[in-house]
């Protein structure tokens, strides 16, 4: 049982071709620039962004205690560790997306990648859900889903399968593939996300085991 909702973050209607500015750099991280008086040193630090709803807003599908751990401990740890790793390097001052792409290094991952990508992934994940979510999309997204998957039910099936079959830790995504100009469902391991594959993420679900432990214990083992 996965709580899926239409991405709350997308407010503009999808018009094609998607403008490059879609990767809004200010959206996903609060880059705080501070200037030490008299030294002219600018340091950028990423901050832990709260989900766009209170921690108990998704009960009973996702509990407050899950949020307290998943967001309050895991997500926070990724942010703190990322800041530690990039302090004093040329990655400070970059946007989160730029850090991710730079440290992805065409597949030859540099150490900050895992933390940076996981910060972004979780920001995106919280925004992919909302209280009273689920159901079906409407408007342009529904048209596109129907066009590229056949029907919403087909898409939902494919999405759930992708989530359930990701071995080990990872994510399942609904993306827009600019190359093929169509929507697709993809899965990614560990911290990898579609930004590094030049795809535009629209929706995601976290299938690291930590998020599923609750499901597996409370509901059944089926992811």
């Amino acid at each position, binding site marked *: 049982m996965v709580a899926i909702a239409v991405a709350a973050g997308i407010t503009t209607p999808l018009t094609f071709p998607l403008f490059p500015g879609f990767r809004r750099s200010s959206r996903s991280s609060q880059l705080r620039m501070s200037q030490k008086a008299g030294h002219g040193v600018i340091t950028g630090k990423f901050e832990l962004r709260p989900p766009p709803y209170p921690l108990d807003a998704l009960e009973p599908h996702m509990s407050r205690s899950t949020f307290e751990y998943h967001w309050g401990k895991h997500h926070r740890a990724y942010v703190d560790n990322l800041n530690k790793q990039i302090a004093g390097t040329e990655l400070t001052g970059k946007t989160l997306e730029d850090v991710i792409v730079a440290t992805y290094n065409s597949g030859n991952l540099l150490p900050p990648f895992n933390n940076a990508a996981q910060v972004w992934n979780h920001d995106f994940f919280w925004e992919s859900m909302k209280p009273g979510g689920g159901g079906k999309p409407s408007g342009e997204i529904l048209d596109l889903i129907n066009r590229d998957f056949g029907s919403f039910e087909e898409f939902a099936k494919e999405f759930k399968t992708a989530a359930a079959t990701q071995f080990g830790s990872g994510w399942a995504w609904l993306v827009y593939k600019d190359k093929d100009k169509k929507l697709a469902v993809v899965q990614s391991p560990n911290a990898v996300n579609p930004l590094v594959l030049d795809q535009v993420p629209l929706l995601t679900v976290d299938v690291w085991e930590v998020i599923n*432990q609750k499901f597996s214990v409370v509901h059944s083992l089926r992811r």
Partner: protein
Amino acid sequence: MSLSSCGSSSICSLSSGILVANDPSSKLSKRRFTPSISQPGWKQRRDSSDNNRGVSKVFGYYGLKSPPYKLDALEPYMSQRTLEVHWGLHHRGYVEALNKQLEKNDSLYGCTMDELIKVLYNNGNPFPEFNDAAQVWNHDFFWESMQPGGGDMPTLGLLQQIEKDFGSFTNFKEKFTEAALTLFGSGWVWLVLKREAKCLAIIKTSNSINPLVWNDIPITSLDMWEHAYYLDYRNDKAKYVNTFMNHLVSWNAAAVRMVRAQAFVNLGEPKIPVA
């Protein structure tokens, strides 16, 4: 797909639950096996051509091996609940998935678990069955790598070898812990005896990979998948790893494996008698 014969497996271990006859001359194929019938417990496969009289087919399956202790024996370091979920649901799930997959592909029958894993790994291009087979093996190995009243230190030869290859036991413990804490995503940490280099080493692997695929000999292991520690330790991985080292790891099991490993890897200088 063509597979090499399983018969001459150098690491011989009982796969969970069934005895497998190692017939050196038999090649794996879709045809039936004809091992010596005197092998106890061997479940023989028959072609449908034998079954005109309505006798049902017999298949060999892997079974779920129980840990060598009761499910609450590792309390309070690893709770009964964890064992129930980790062994009873996850490990069982892997066994059942593997059996389902093997049903469709009978050319894989007859392998010991070790050989099955190597064959399915396919030199880095694994077949779909690999994950389940490897995870079954990994978990069998993991349960046996722990014991109630575990922890403490190894003794005798194993301790000597650890001190030789790591400097000191403390250093080994540190390196092992570091490997466990720096593993990203799901995976395992292993103490292995490397065949070529003839020394102990610590390696970490992702998802279901294990050292058998590189022909190294595992001595002990730690499961770093989140399902192994999350119920008891949540996100406090360091506490989990330390608890494992101090209270759970079975150096007895490790010593036995070390002794067995030395049948295949010569660790010492050859003692040439002087006349």
